[in-house]
């Protein structure tokens, strides 16, 4: 445990010096503030409190931003050590490869959690200033918070795996961007195209909900929309959110972080220094 903490402390310091902490905090704060001002305008006719509406908007933001930040922070984790030549020495220390990755995860996840606390906190503050009924939306905000951390852990793990597989920072960066585009943007477009082509057939009714749950980003979105019952204020995936029970979307949200980290540790074990 002390070895994990030692690694986490050093990684946090490095991220601070590399401005990753500042970048994550500023990005989350700016986007959350923009959304909480812009996104609360049309809420009047829907009967929901302003915070629930803002949480729905923040969910859409988090789906894009959290994986991106996580991948940007993690793609260098193993490949960077290989390139700098620091890995052989590190691996002669009495520390396991799993401990090294868990230490990095603790630091990076801490930074993401800090950025989210700031971003979501600011958004909630703005909402409260305009609507006292916003208290009703607090459970949804809390759910968004911890599930965002889980989403971050998933993509940090995926980033470490990509980093260990590529072994070069440039290759790892390319793979990380590809992974982000694939899972966050193209996957949904592909599903949309399939649903349109299928025209209400077996794929749309049977396979589509599970295809959504198989993707960590979509599972996160489904879970937050389904749990908050806010599907009324969000289009698109919102339709599916009303079909799938909350527990079914909760399972992938909780399983993906462990799966991604296991994959990362396996990939890291295959790296020969």
């Amino acid at each position, binding site marked *: 445990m*002390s*070895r994990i*903490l*030692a*690694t986490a*402390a*050093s990684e946090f*310091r*490095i991220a601070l*010096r*590399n401005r990753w902490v500042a970048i994550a905090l500023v990005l989350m704060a700016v986007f959350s503030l923009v959304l909480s001002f812009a996104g609360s305008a049309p809420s009047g006719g829907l009967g929901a409190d302003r915070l629930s509406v803002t949480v729905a908007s923040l969910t859409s933001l988090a789906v894009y931003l959290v994986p991106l930040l996580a991948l940007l922070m993690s793609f260098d984790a193993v490949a960077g050590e290989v390139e*700098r*030549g*620091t890995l*052989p*020495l590190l*691996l*002669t*220390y*009495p*520390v*396991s490869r799993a401990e090294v990755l868990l230490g990095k995860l603790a630091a990076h996840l801490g930074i993401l959690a800090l950025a989210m606390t700031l971003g979501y906190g600011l958004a909630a503050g703005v909402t409260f200033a305009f609507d006292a009924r916003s208290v009703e939306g607090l459970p949804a905000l809390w759910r968004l918070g911890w599930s965002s951390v889980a989403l971050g852990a998933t993509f940090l793990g995926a980033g470490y795996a990509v980093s260990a597989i590529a072994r070069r920072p440039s290759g790892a960066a390319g793979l990380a961007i590809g992974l982000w585009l694939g899972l966050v943007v193209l996957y949904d477009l592909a599903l949309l195209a399939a649903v349109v082509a299928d025209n209400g057939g077996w794929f749309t009714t049977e396979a589509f909900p599970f295809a959504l749950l198989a993707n960590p980003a979509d599972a996160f979105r489904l879970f937050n929309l389904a749990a908050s019952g806010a599907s009324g204020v969000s289009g698109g995936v919102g339709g599916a959110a009303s079909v799938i029970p909350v527990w079914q979307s909760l399972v992938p949200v909780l399983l993906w972080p462990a799966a991604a980290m296991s994959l990362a540790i396996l990939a890291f074990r295959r790296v*020969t*220094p």
Partner: protein
Amino acid sequence: MTSTLTISGLTKRFEGVTALADVSLTVAPGERVALLGHNGAGKSTMMKIILGLIPATEGRVEVCGAAPGSPEARRQVAYLPENAAFHPALTGEEQLRHYLRLRGEDPAGASALLERVGLGGAARRRIGTYSKGMRQRVGLAQALIGHPRLLVLDEPTSGLDPVSRRDFYALLDALAAEGAAILLSSHALTEVEARTDRILILSGGRLVAEGSLTDLRRSAALPVAMHVTARNGHAVQIAAALPGAIAAGGLVHLTCAQSEKLDVLGRIAGLGDKVADLEVLPPSLEDIYSHYSRRDGQ
């Protein structure tokens, strides 16, 4: 006394290329052993196997009574890589605190370690601003953490100036006196400066020579060179009196086997007045090293 490092019949092949062939050696506690060889002779490969970073193809390696790379072995072995590299964003002190904590030691010892390698003044500067020699010292400082029983040092003196090199060997002497076994590599015999107890020469993955510098010098049996300075114009006469000698200007050059050295010296002394001066040049460290490292496969 049981040895700290035991290697028997070690062979390593990379996709058909044999990097190490049937190498056997031992290093006892308190012993300083130098591993010499050209680039690509197999020094770094052997060190990586000892450290458990890569597996051996054949043979047995035992480090402090444990398998290489096992937690038990890693706790007792320190390593200094060939080009010691660290994260440029951390300061020397932060980096050492990190390593101390990984070994379960008190991180407060970082500044004392940096003082010990002469980096006290730069402790709070980022490693990104360090010179190669300073990074090498950080590498050395981390290798001193927690009284290791075996130190594996890959070309430790390569970035150091002559004064730092002396300091470095003084540190090694102190460690060896405490019972640490030291295995260090170098690509030149001059760099180890005869400050080691035993020398191993690797060539093309094979151990071609082993022994103290005196042993190696004796068994190499390289010829001794002599330069005789002749007194006005006697150079040709001197050259004629000594078999195999060549006169060039006022100088006479000749070489002879170790066993004939005293005999030849006697003859030169017998020339009396004709000789102004005599210089005897024993084979240099470089000569001895190339003798062994070229014998096999080159």
